[in-house]
């Protein structure tokens, strides 16, 4: 397991190096001169050239990439064109809001999906199973965007129970969390259900029943543990996506997180910011997947042999 963890670590590091190359090239390949974007429109050729030298744009591409990596290692993500401040400072100010939204969503999603999926899996063909299937199918077709707007219409416009937009206490959190948690829990329910069904059809389950293990003990002690592996992988993927900032949800609900910052930076053509956000989301995503894989290899040591 330790060897597996170390191998996965190096693999993730390699992936992140490739991601930095992508993020670097993306901005370099963009049409238009980055120096001109920073300067006001009436800047002279001379000023543009000075800015290019200041930004290191006159050097060959590999040297620029090397400087970019060195800056990254020092924690310098570049300077925002709009805010005229280090991009890292502006992004990290947004992190707590995004983390709060992501963790609440995962929590609510699990509370809905795991009991429903497990009961559906242990009671196949029952009304609960049918309900879980309809719940999941509807949820997978509901986009966060449409659900979000619909929730605002019902709860903020018609019933006037909750605020439509803004960042603040729990009442601001309810609608965005619901709009993200439902589509997520739809997939999770299906995975938990099929995990339960697959595990309960294994030969060792029959052997354990023959040995006299009770149904409750079978579910809680043996089946659940195996069924949770695909679920935790799925949750890890979702957490990674949510931590990257849910651009659509945060934009709809005016939640001041990284996703909203992404949308604003896109609208204002703040390329260094877009680049940094892409990079940070990739780092978070990779780190969380690495952690989930290592946790899974401890739950089920068979996974570490590949």
């Amino acid at each position: 397991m330790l060897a597996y963890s170390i191998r996965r670590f190096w693999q993730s590091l390699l992936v992140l190096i490739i991601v930095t190359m992508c993020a670097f090239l993306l901005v370099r390949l963009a049409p238009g001169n980055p120096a001109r974007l920073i300067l006001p429109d009436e800047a002279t050729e001379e000023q543009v050239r000075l800015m290019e030298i200041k930004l290191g744009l006159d050097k060959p591409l590999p040297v620029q990439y090397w400087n970019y990596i060195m800056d990254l290692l020092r924690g310098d993500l570049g300077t925002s064109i709009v805010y005229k401040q280090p991009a890292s400072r502006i992004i990290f100010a947004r992190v707590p809001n995004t983390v709060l939204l992501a963790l609440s969503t995962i929590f609510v999603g699990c509370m809905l999906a795991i009991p429903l999926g497990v009961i559906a899996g242990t009671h196949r063909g029952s009304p609960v199973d049918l309900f879980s299937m309809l719940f999941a199918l509807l949820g997978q077709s509901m986009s966060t965007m449409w659900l979000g707007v619909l929730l605002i219409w019902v709860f903020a416009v018609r019933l006037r129970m909750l605020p439509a937009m803004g960042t603040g206490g729990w009442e601001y959190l309810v609608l965005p969390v619901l709009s993200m948690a439902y589509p997520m829990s739809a997939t999770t329910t299906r995975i938990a259900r099929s995990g339960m069904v697959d595990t309960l059809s294994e030969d060792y389950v029959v052997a354990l029943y023959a040995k006299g293990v009770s149904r409750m003990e079978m579910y809680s002690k043996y089946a659940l543990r195996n069924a949770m592996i695909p679920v935790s992988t799925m949750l890890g993927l979702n957490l990674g996506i949510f931590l990257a900032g849910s651009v659509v949800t945060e934009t709809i609900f005016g939640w001041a997180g990284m996703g909203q910052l992404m949308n604003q930076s896109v609208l204002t053509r703040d390329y260094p910011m877009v680049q940094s956000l892409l990079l940070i989301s990739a780092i978070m995503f990779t780190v969380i997947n690495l952690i989930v894989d290592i946790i899974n290899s401890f739950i089920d040591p068979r996974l570490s042999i590949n």
Partner: protein
Amino acid sequence: MDTKTTISRMLHSYFFVIGLICLIFIIISCYILPYWIPWEPLENSLLDKSLPPEFFRNGLSGHILGTDTLGRDVLIRLLIGGQYSFRLAFISVVLQAILGTVLGMLSGYFGGQVDSIIMRACDAIMAMPSLVLAIAIMAIFGPSTQNLIFVLTVSGWVQLCKIIRNNVRVVKQQEFVLASGILGASGFHIMFKQIFPNVTTNIIIITSQRMGFVILMEASLSFLNLGIPVPAPSWGNMIAAGRQYLVTQPWLIMAPGIALMLAVLAFNFLGDGIRDVLDTKRKV
């Protein structure tokens, strides 16, 4: 599996039948109904602005689903927007399938250096959440149809590529492939004539499940004004525009929202149905 078994399995899969019927209904509406509707998607008339839905009170010549704040008919925009979405999603899914299959087969067949390069590329793309990557690319290269097809394709081929690669690695070891090699068949022949027919089932299963996802992603991008450029209609930008008039004109979000949900539901049903039909290990 012969044709008769396949058809019988299709008719016995509820998912397949319901999905197919819904989809045929939606596609016929989008492509044929516009001929009977007397409005144009970009034709605005300030006299008729913000009319609530009339449904069929005036037959097909009225504003069945109402008009938006510029007096454009909602139904015709919905149908034309659907046409754009389906066309874009179809092109992207086909490109994803081609890219994923070719790279997956090369990776699985040659192994070694080719395999590690392709697999690391897959890992790098998978490390970036697909919507964030799509937004970054669209933001930097600007909204246009070609760029939209590019971003919808770029993150979608990875899953197929990995599955095909593993599939090819298994098939490659089987006796008939080894025999073909010993008899002097070229690598090209082995790849496309011997191995390819054994991976087509997986290609169809994975590809059919991507349509719904790509339509949702296109709608999200259009919602953020990074998709189909306005004023051309798309379900995403119709929801984005309607969102500002939620209090007084809720029909502006209901129509595209429900259309989006039904279309994705139909594709998901069909995808699940196709998996049930083709996956011989599963019971329908």
